[in-house]
């Protein structure tokens, strides 16, 4: 999956997905609608799309979608 597709998949997990713009460097936890359930939803999306169980601890250490994407690439 390309980075842009990955960011789009992440955007779909936001409750107000149609109203937000995201890019690879967005500090996504600062978006108003982000909460712990959005985070859980992103983790489930990663599991479904990549068959990778990312721990919450590692997920919490990543600030941008690019950082998460790069990590996933190393885990494939």
């Amino acid at each position, binding site marked *: 999956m390309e980075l842009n597709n990955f960011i789009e998949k992440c955007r779909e997990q936001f409750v107000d997905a149609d109203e937000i713009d995201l890019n690879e460097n967005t500090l996504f936890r600062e978006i108003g*609608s982000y909460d712990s359930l959005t985070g859980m939803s992103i983790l489930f999306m990663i599991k479904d799309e990549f068959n990778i169980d990312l721990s919450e601890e590692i997920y919490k250490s990543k600030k941008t979608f690019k950082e998460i994407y790069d990590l996933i690439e190393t885990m494939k």
Partner: protein
Amino acid sequence: MNQAYITALSYYLPANILDNKMISELHPEWSIDKIALKTGIEVRHISAEDEFASDMAYSAASALFSEYDVDKHDIDFVLLCTQSPDHFLPTTACLLQERLGLSKNCGALDFNLGCSGFIYGLGLAKALIQSDQAKNVLLITSETYTKYIHPNDKTNKTIFGDGAAAVLISKEKSDGMLNGRIGNFVYGTDGSGASNLIVKNGGARFKNEVGIDLIDENGSTVNDDYLYMDGKAIFNFTASEIPKLIKKGLDKNEISLDNVDLAIFHQANEYMLNVVRTRCNIAKEKFYVNFSDGGNTVSSTIPIALKRALNEGALANVKTLLLAGFGVGLSMGTTIVTIEE
């Protein structure tokens, strides 16, 4: 073997309401739009101070009797699903037998389940009918969870509302009734998650404990005397386990998802429902959501949604319904209902 049919259903919501504007006024840091966006709920109905599970159950059952041509003397078993009974004892279903004027030859019992309770109730009712212990089972779900919510617990306050539903499950079909044949069941339980949705104090184990107010990461007050829910843990359980449950349920009923015309899941929270729907590969147009008026009424959300779907004509071309409940316990269950002529 006998079949069991859902023939009639009605529900009751208390008159008092708590809408998003009222919550926003109490907790100004939460906007009206944000509450609606996060939960999909506009209005919750709140039981009056002197209104309890048996009162709401009575109202739901009375609505059923008046709406349908049901002779209440034909009812030979009452099942009441509640986690907020009027008393520790006696059994609230026994109070209802008397108040509803049901036969003294009627069996009656309460069972303690939450959001999965309606599915389990259907399973119990079907088993009673198939084993010739009953012909007409009155299944009632009734909860006053809002009485368990701390006044400053804004998180649970936005999600839960009170309500009751009454459903008649019969051995025989009847003209002009719903006639939904109840299929096979798959259940699941994970008691390791019990503490994730709990009212810890007040029962026999912690009868004399006194809870202390603590503030959680969302700014909500938590206290062991009141309802506690770890939303993240419940979300994790639901998103992880329900897709597997649904697959097992479809297999046990020997159908595929393509054969399902409409799915009605426990109406917990719109965001979570959407994630679960996606993970179950159910198309949006086949997934019924209708709880913006009422909120999460625990074991009553599925029968309320079913009744609303019926009233709206959303069941007009529906033959096969997929039902699933999940939550406190942690507990889950699913079945198929096939609507017959």
